[in-house]
C-alpha cells in the first residue's frame, strides 16, 4: 500500500504554534480557556497547544482529556465495544471557552460524540474546535474553528497522525488510492 508522509515533526511543531496563536487571537488572550483533547491523539495535541499558549501568554491553560467511547453511534457496527479510558476534565467548564482538540476531522461523528460527552461535565460558555488535519467528507453539520492543515482526500483513503506521546514518532501519513497525486495537490 503506497504511503506518503504529509507532515514531519517540524511542520507539526509549527502548526501547533500557529494553532496556539489563532486560539489566543480568537479568545483575546488565554483567560477562561480550557483545552479538551479527544483520546487518544487529541489529548497530547491539546497539551502541546497549551504549552505553546503558556509560552506566548505566560498563562497556564487547563487541559482535559475526553474519551468518547460511551457516546459513539457506531458501536453496534463495530461488533465489539470500543476500549474505554477515564475522561478527566480539570475543574469546572461552566461558562468557560472550551476548545475541543482532535487530530483528524473526517465525518464529524467523533466531534458529535465529544459534544455530548462534554455537556455531561457542565455548561461551557462556548465550544470551539481545533484539529490538526481537516480531511473533509463531513456527514454532520460540524465545522472546525482552527485548522492545522486542510487535506483533500478520497473517502477510502486513510490519514494517520502519529505523535511521539502515543506512537513514538511525529508524522502525518496518507495511505490508499493514488496517494502521490492527491497528496501533492
Amino acid at each position, binding site marked *: 500500500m503506497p504511503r506518503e508522509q504529509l507532515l514531519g515533526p517540524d511542520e507539526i511543531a509549527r502548526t501547533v504554534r500557529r494553532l496556539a496563536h489563532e486560539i489566543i487571537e480568537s479568545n483575546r488572550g488565554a483567560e477562561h480557556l480550557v483545552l479538551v483533547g479527544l*483520546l*487518544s491523539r487529541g*489529548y497530547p495535541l491539546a497539551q502541546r497547544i497549551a504549552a505553546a499558549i503558556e509560552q506566548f501568554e505566560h498563562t497556564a491553560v487547563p487541559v482535559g*482529556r475526553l*474519551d468518547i*467511547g*460511551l*457516546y459513539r453511534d457506531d*458501536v*453496534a457496527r*463495530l*461488533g*465489539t*465495544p470500543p*476500549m*474505554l*479510558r*477515564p*475522561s*478527566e476534565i480539570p475543574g469546572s467548564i461552566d461558562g468557560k471557552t472550551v476548545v475541543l482538540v482532535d487530530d483528524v476531522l473526517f465525518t464529524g461523528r467523533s466531534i458529535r460524540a465529544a459534544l455530548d460527552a462534554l455537556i*455531561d*461535565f*457542565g455548561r461551557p460558555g462556548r465550544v470551539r474546535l481545533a484539529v490538526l488535519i481537516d480531511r473533509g467528507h463531513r456527514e454532520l453539520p460540524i465545522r472546525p474553528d482552527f485548522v492545522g492543515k486542510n487535506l483533500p482526500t478520497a473517502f477510502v483513503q486513510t490519514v494517520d497522525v502519529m505523535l511521539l506521546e502515543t506512537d513514538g514518532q511525529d508524522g502525518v501519513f496518507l495511505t490508499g488510492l493514488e496517494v502521490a497525486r492527491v497528496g501533492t495537490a
Partner: protein
Amino acid sequence: MLELRDPETQAIDAPTPPTSWKAKDLLDTDTLSRDEIELIMHTAEAMAEVRRRPIGKVATLRGATVVTLFYEQSTRTRASFEVAAKAMGADVVNLTASGSSVEKGETVIDTVRTLEAIGADVVVMRHGSSGAPYLAARHTKASVINGGDGMHAHPTQALLDLFTMRRHMGDSIEGKKVAIIGDVLHSRVARSNIWTLLAMGASVTLCGPATLLPTTLGGRHESGEVTVTTRIDEALDGASVVMALRIQKERQDSGLIPSLRDYIRGYQLNARRLGLANAGALVMHPGPMNEGIEIAPDVAHGVASVIEEQVTNGVAVRMAILYLLAAGRHA
C-alpha cells in the same frame, strides 16, 4: 491509613489490554484470561470516572433491556446491577421467584425464553442451584450474567473484589498473598475469587475449620497454587488482603462447626489477628456480614476495611460488564 491511588493520574499511560470482548455470557471467572480480566478492570476504571461526575449516568445502553431474575434473595447484587444498568441508560425489569410464574412451576428454560421474547438483552440470574445460569445461557440469545449460583460461582463479586484490591495495591497483585477465611466450602464468592486471583498471579490461602474447607479445587489445590490451612495465624502471616466470609448460622445446626462461639474463638477476624497480616493489609467482606461472628465490628469498620468501597466499586464493575456484553450486540 490506606493509600488510595489517584485515579486521575493513571489513565492514558496505562497499556491497552490486547484483547476485545467476545463472549456472550459471564458465568464464572474460571474461563477468563488475564487479558480479559484486564479489559474488565480498565473498562471499570472508565465507569468509576463516570460515577464521579456530577451526573453519573450515560446513555450508551439506551434501548437495551436488562432483566434481573433472582430465585434467591439479595440486597447488594440486585440493587447494584439495577443502578449499574440505569447508569448506562438501559431499561431494567426486576423479577423474583416469588410473585412471578416461577411460583406456578415455570422452568428456568421457559422463563429465559419468555424474557428473550419480551426483548431482554441481558439476564442477570441468581439461583440456588449450581449451574442454573449455564442452563439458561444455552437456551437464550440474551447475554446471561451469573449473579450467584448455589455454591458454585459469583463472578461479578470476584471482579469487584479484584478491582477494589487494585485501587489500593496498584495494577499488579502478582505475588501478593490473599487470605480467604471462613466457610470456603459453601462459598461461591471464594471460588470465583480464587480463579481471578490465580489468573492475576496472586497467591491464595484458604483458611477455616477443616469441615468448611474444600478438599478439591480443580487440581489447583493439589498443584500447590492454592494453600489450604486450618491455622488462622499461618493464613494471616504475610497477607496483603484478608477476606472474611459469612458464616451461615445453619452450619452450626448441620454439625459442621461445634458452635458459633467455638468458631469465633478459632477464626473470627479481630484486631489482634489482623496485626499478624502485613502492615496496611486490606480487610474485605462480600457481605452481608455477621458482625461479631466472622468479623469483629471494630475491624469491619476500622481503617483497614474497604468493605463499603467494595459495594461502591460493584456498580462500576457491573457497568463495565454490562457494557462489554451488551454494547457491541445491541443497536
